[in-house]
């Protein structure tokens, strides 16, 4: 289905790269860059090995069972942390965003708690929850709640007043207005918020594992670091990055299905981010 945009474009300007090829070209270009940087000793190769060595180390790790156990443990912490954050932030965001008085009462508290770094809370988390899964989940959930809460608030606040007024004049009650006008308008914000929170939850889960020693990829990274096994360390960091990329790709696909009616997702508009 061609839109005006496509019809208006002059003939002969097909995209330079086929859609499916473009991401790989980008990745390869960056990998080649890093390989060069290390091989030419622009950065000392002893401390920043060539990308090929990093992938070789990763390859060696991927065949061990311990690696996949660690991945599972990290994912467990991530899922729980994100799940809790969603359960708290989305309803709270909708509630607070819809009530002017409620918003004003809690605004100072939110803005005060939001910037507190989870890192600073690590000893407290360990004290209360120990050095295992619960600490990890607490830190991940705490950090992931705020971006989602803020995005939900933003989304609820950004509703087109004409739409709400129209709904009101059609006789829609508060609840119906919320469900049929405010929420759909807010959903893109919430979707972006979930994606951001997912990344935050993963990062905090791995950070908690790194520092506290909760089982997972982060702990493996720390063990490799302390042993001076630089290839393994970077291999594991790559694994963490790949995990984040995979999760994001998953969320993007889900988002595309769910938000197919929104302008940024309409056919012909090609949004990949």
């Amino acid at each position: 289905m061609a839109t005006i945009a496509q019809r208006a474009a002059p003939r002969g300007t097909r995209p330079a790269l086929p859609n499916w090829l473009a991401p790989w070209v980008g990745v390869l270009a960056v990998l080649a860059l890093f390989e060069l940087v290390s091989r030419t000793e622009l950065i000392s190769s002893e401390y920043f090995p060539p990308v090929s060595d990093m992938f070789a180390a990763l390859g060696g790790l991927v065949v061990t069972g311990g690696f996949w156990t660690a991945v599972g443990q990290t994912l467990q912490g991530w899922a729980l942390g994100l799940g809790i954050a969603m359960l708290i932030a989305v309803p709270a965001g909708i509630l607070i965003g819809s009530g002017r008085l409620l918003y004003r009462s809690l605004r100072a508290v939110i803005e005060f708690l939001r910037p507190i770094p989870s890192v600073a809370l690590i000893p407290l988390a360990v004290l209360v929850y120990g050095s295992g899964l619960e600490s990890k989940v607490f830190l991940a959930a705490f950090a992931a709640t705020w971006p989602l809460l803020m995005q939900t608030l933003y989304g609820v606040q950004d509703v087109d007043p004409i739409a709400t007024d129209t709904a009101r004049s059609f006789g829609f009650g508060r609840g119906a207005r919320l469900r049929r006008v405010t929420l759909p308008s807010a959903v893109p914000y919430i979707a972006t918020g979930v994606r951001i929170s997912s990344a935050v939850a993963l990062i905090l889960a791995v950070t908690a594992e790194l520092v506290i020693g909760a089982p997972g990829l982060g702990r493996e990274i720390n063990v490799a670091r302390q042993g001076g096994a630089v290839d393994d360390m970077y291999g594991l960091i790559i694994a963490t990055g790949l995990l984040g990329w995979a999760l994001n790709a998953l969320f993007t696909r889900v988002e595309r299905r769910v938000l197919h009616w929104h302008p940024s997702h309409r056919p012909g508009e090609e949004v990949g981010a």
Partner: protein
Amino acid sequence: MRRERLLGGALEIAVPILLLVLWGVWSSASDTYYFPPLTDILTTFRETWLFDRFGSDVVPSLVRLGLGFGLACVAGVVLGMALGLHPTLRRLTDPVVQFLRSIPPPALLPFGILVMGVGNSMKVFIIAFVCVWPVLLNTIDGVAGVDPTLRETSRVYGVTSRDRLFHVTLPAATPQVFAGMRTSLSLALILMVISEMVASTNGIGYFVLQSQRTFAIPEMWSGILLLGILGYVLNAGFVLIERRVLRWHRGARASSLS
């Protein structure tokens, strides 16, 4: 309407104070080492931050925060515009962006030290590197999500590409861009602390982490308190700026909560 606004203002002050009082009461009853009484924390706060360590720790931290955040905003908006408008570019860079974004900041520290050393530039780099993503992603979403009717109408009317960019697309994307910047701002504070985890000789994060290591718990809490206050103040300042810039948008969308 006016009564509601007065009530809102009163609540905005009363609720936090109430929570503080509750914290004070609960903490004076507890005797855990890691949760000292609020009164101790407040005393330590006054002694440390007003104004003994203000110049030596708060100022350098805030300067690095400002530089890192500023860098992230500029890079995020510029790249986000480019990527938002060119689907091919977006496809080229998307996997790389998603990958880099997922690297936990503490894992970036060794690379940061390697490339930038142990000084301020390393810390600014770390802050900027992590803070760029929310701005970037929100800019992309904002630019790509501009109502196509808007875009096509302006094209039909013969508005040039450049004018379309600056007078249609960008303004339409601004609310979402600012949402991204707000997220980045609170991230920046967190990253400021993480970046001071190593190779630091001053800073608020450095102070909090050193207090942790030397078991100076009231000092640690006073630092956490300061971080919360700073976050609040920075965010309030940002909202003021945002309100200015988005005044036309608010008029059109009239947020029910301004």
